């Protein structure tokens, strides 16, 4: 017999997974309406639900950016409230800074009130340390969305190769969540003139069939499929 894990970490992780499932449903048209407002309203633990909005960040806008789903004032208010309850801090890691700036920009673009996004983000390039760079990019995967100013403004062949190497490494280590995040960036780069050196369709099929089955990873692969199919060029 198993018992629910009552630790705060488990509660917050469950909230992130729940919201990722909603966003995925909205993106694929299997569930809706599913903006962050509904997620917070229906949550047993509203604070954890707001934390999930902060964690997913730009990804809560994915259905709007990739599938033309509505993102209304109540959804904007939920994001604003998430920033109020969990404000950016001066010691946030660079990945968090990038995520918050992208979320804040999307919020404003969708009619929300401006929020303070925190410090200036730093940039990194693959150079010869492809493994470290790929790890950094995997943590930034919510920024692989059309219309988001992220860490890969002009992807080139070297970046595409580094992403493919990181994806390959993650697959060989059976780290499917990381593989999905990097495949998403690879699809993003592919759509911007830096062709992926892997068969992305096969990679995404493999992750979906062999991966962890979490909603968050499924969201990454679903977004990757849309980026690879060029959805962003129709809706961004």
């Amino acid at each position: 017999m198993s018992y629910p894990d009552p630790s705060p970490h488990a509660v917050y992780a469950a909230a992130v997974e729940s919201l990722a499932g909603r966003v995925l449903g909205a993106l694929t048209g299997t569930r809706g309406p599913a903006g962050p407002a509904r997620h917070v309203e229906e949550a047993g633990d509203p604070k954890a639900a707001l934390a999930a909005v902060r964690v997913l960040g730009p990804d809560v806008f994915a259905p709007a950016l990739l599938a033309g789903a509505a993102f209304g004032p109540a959804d904007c208010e939920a994001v604003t409230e998430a920033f109020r309850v969990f404000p950016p801090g001066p010691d946030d890691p660079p990945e968090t800074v990038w995520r918050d700036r992208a979320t804040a920009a999307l919020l404003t673009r969708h009619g929300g009130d401006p929020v303070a996004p925190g410090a200036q983000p730093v940039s990194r390039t693959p150079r010869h340390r492809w493994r470290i760079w790929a790890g950094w990019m995997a943590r930034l995967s919510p920024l692989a969305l059309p219309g988001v100013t992220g860490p890969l403004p002009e992807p080139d062949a070297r970046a595409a190769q580094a992403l493919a190497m990181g994806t390959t490494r993650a697959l060989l280590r059976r780290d499917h969540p990381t593989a999905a995040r990097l495949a998403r960036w690879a699809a993003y780069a592919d759509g911007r003139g830096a062709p992926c050196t892997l068969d992305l369709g096969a990679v995404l099929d493999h992750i979906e069939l062999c991966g962890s089955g979490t909603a968050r990873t499924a969201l990454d692969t679903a977004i990757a499929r849309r980026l690879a199919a060029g959805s962003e060029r129709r809706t961004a």
Partner: protein
Amino acid sequence: MTAPSPSPAAVRRTAHTLATGAVGWLHRHRELGSLPPDTSGELTDPDSVYKPLGESALAASLVLREGIASPADRRAAEEILDFAWAQLREGDLLYERQLRYMMMTDPLELYTHFARAGYRHERLHALFNHLGRLVSRDGAEQLPNRRLAVANAARVAGLDREPDWQVLTDATWLGHTPEPWAIDWMTAYCVTHTVFHVTDWGGRPQGLSPEIQDYLARWLPVWMDVWQEIQEWDLLAELLIVDSCLAEPRSAPEVWEVLAGAQRPDGLVPRNGEPVSDDPEQAFREHHHTTVVAAVAGTLALSRHRGAPALV
């Protein structure tokens, strides 16, 4: 974004230390690889001593072929070959074995290391040529990379065969340039051996098509990374040989330092991260192969690594 060139001096320095230590260990422990008295060509357990004799001979023959070893290492290589050839009764044991088992390819695959260094057994040579002309040889039920091993052995031994290298290479896993994330441990060994035999251990890098060279340049760093992480030193060393078999070896000094760090002070290179037995015979049985591989890897890198920049 430009990748800095790895320092060829750093790679070659580490490679030299690795190779010298490994060759010295193979030389000092060569008698642990003696065949039991009255060994016949039937060889009930060919993997126990017979195959390691051939592997030591391979490493020694490449040390001599590359021609860059110190006088001491060169002398050690010559003595390894002389010892192994004597164990094989100057080729008579290979001849008996080939007579008894005409479809077996290991007599040729061992003989070729000695042939590379100038040894020759006339009747065995003639027997190989005869068997190679049989249709039966073409129909042998072999893995594609094993078929390449035989083809390269025949080439190095100077036999009268001219296989279609393109057809043989295309039949391998590597020849398909497949999804690099689909490789597994055993397939990785198929890849390394495909490269060893197509290029004759780095002697003819042009034997690999530009497409395969590009494929390996792209994915070797990833494969080295994952097998280095789990301390599969044997496979890591084989992948480093593959790098040295390319027209432009690119392996990074850090990878060499990791492998050199696994080498013991006496020159033995363990096959993986497990403890090495204090029993010399057990240590020889379990780690002889990896020490051979390290000797080859170090020798070829010392000779061929010019510090081409990594793709990323």
